[in-house]
């Protein structure tokens, strides 16, 4: 058994007998599960902030199903590594939707109360209800502990990502600045060399080469500096159709076309234009690189709502899609962590930086796969920013 689970069981005092008691009561309690799930959602519905965690009714419906399955598994066993594995996903799902941790304590109490009532209502003189309730409480404690543990892991990972990015940014900045002095000498020297060379074609050819490569180095240095600069966005109304076109023009893409649709009510959004362009260049470049044979990069801009804990705000979604191979499950999990890269070329800073920029815009960047194939990146930016009307 996984050390974590073993430790939790021992700490809470949950043993094989507890497990057996739960499994034995499973059939008798099953008819009360739906009622408990409903109570859970009545409580959530009554709390505006909890309600806002959900994007739409469809997600509520899905979540009800998930919770019912959760209750069934609670009484079905086996309480082994597969159980830990399944339960670990809950904490991660909650981090993903930014569920404040305190909510799970309150909602677990609703479940505890519902199960207590259901056990008391059982009509079975043979049943040791106190012992069964104790087993239930113990497993509820284990559930909470697993949720918090995985919550913490994911939270730590987000923190590490931010720190790693900051360190890398500092390093990139120093490196870039230190490169500028030698580059200045190289470029002035090649200028002088050209002057002295007269029109000796052999020399001129090499001076040309040196100057071109110095320009390439200059570009790399500028890119590194763009990465290192962690400046807060300067918000101004940005025309999305034109910034998309502009970003597209910056890419070299021999075999690709751009297919943009902008909904009339989503033409403009407050953003830092140069930062948003950087995000678009990155994402569209990834899209073209994913389609090695060429093809169309599809960009759709439309209104949507952005759900954050405690509020829902009007927003604009820029969706960028390709028809390449899409992401592997592993890639989807680590996409926004610095230095994670699936490309042969590239250092794995692009997506983390895009993520950082979008987050600084109080928006959300997410990745998923299209069916039957291809990748989808969604940039969601709120329509209102503080300090801008």
């Amino acid at each position, binding site marked *: 058994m996984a050390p974590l689970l073993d430790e939790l069981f021992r700490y809470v005092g949950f043993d094989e007998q507890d497990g057996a008691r739960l499994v034995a009561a499973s059939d008798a309690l099953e008819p009360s599960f739906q009622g408990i799930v409903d109570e859970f959602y009545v409580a959530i519905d009554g709390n505006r902030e909890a309600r806002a965690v959900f994007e739409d009714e469809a997600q509520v419906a899905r979540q009800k199903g998930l919770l019912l399955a959760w209750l069934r598994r609670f009484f079905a066993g086996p309480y082994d590594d597969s159980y830990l594995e399944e339960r670990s996903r809950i904490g991660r799902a909650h981090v993903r939707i930014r569920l404040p941790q305190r909510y799970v304590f309150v909602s677990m109490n609703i479940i505890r109360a519902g199960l207590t009532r259901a056990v008391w209502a059982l009509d079975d003189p043979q049943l040791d209800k106190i012992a069964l309730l104790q087993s239930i409480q113990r497993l509820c404690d284990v559930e909470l502990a697993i949720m918090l543990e995985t919550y913490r892991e994911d939270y730590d990972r987000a923190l590490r990502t931010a720190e790693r990015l900051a360190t890398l940014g500092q390093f990139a900045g120093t490196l870039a600045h230190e490169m*500028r002095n030698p*580059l*200045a*000498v190289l*470029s*002035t020297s090649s*200028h*002088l060399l050209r002057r002295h060379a007269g029109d000796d074609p052999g020399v001129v050819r090499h001076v040309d080469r040196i100057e071109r490569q*110095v320009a390439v180095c200059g570009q790399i240095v500028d890119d590194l*500096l763009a990465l290192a600069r962690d400046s807060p966005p300067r918000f101004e109304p940005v025309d999305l159709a034109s910034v998309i076109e502009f970003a597209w023009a910056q890419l070299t893409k021999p075999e690709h076309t751009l297919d943009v649709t902008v909904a009339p009510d989503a033409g403009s959004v407050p953003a830092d234009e140069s930062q948003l362009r950087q995000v678009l260049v990155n994402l569209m470049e990834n899209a073209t690189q994913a389609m090695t044979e060429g093809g169309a990069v599809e960009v759709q801009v439309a209104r949507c709502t952005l759900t954050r804990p405690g509020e829902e705000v009007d927003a604009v979604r820029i969706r960028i899609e390709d028809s390449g191979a899409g992401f592997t499950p592993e890639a989807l999990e680590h996409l926004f962590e610095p230095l994670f890269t699936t490309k042969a070329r590239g250092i794995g800073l692009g997506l983390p930086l895009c993520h950082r920029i979008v987050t600084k815009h109080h928006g959300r960047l997410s990745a998923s796969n299209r069916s039957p194939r291809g990748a989808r990146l969604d940039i969601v930016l709120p329509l209102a920013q503080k300090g801008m009307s």
Partner: protein
Amino acid sequence: MKVLLVDDNAELADNLAELLASERTEVFAHHDATAALAWGRTHDFDTALLDVRMPELSGVELMRLLRVGHPAARFVLMSAYTQDAELDPTQDTVAAVLTKPLDLPSLAKVLGLDA
């Protein structure tokens, strides 16, 4: 026109001096700020092109000291650090802050030379 040029990167100072020098332009290149300051006490110049980040004296400090004896001179700063480009030109009445590697046509323009 007389240009005072100061950069602790000696090779860059010499290269720039060679590039800027012409029949109409005389360039006095220095590799350290204190030597340049001493030179300034006894010589005249129209424009000073100063690196911002130097040991002993920064380009900004050097400019403030030189300006006392040369109130009519123009000062142009250059730096490898982009954040230096945000030095407040109005406060110090700098003609320009240029970022390295220098773009030679814009340098010539700032200095009032035809490239």
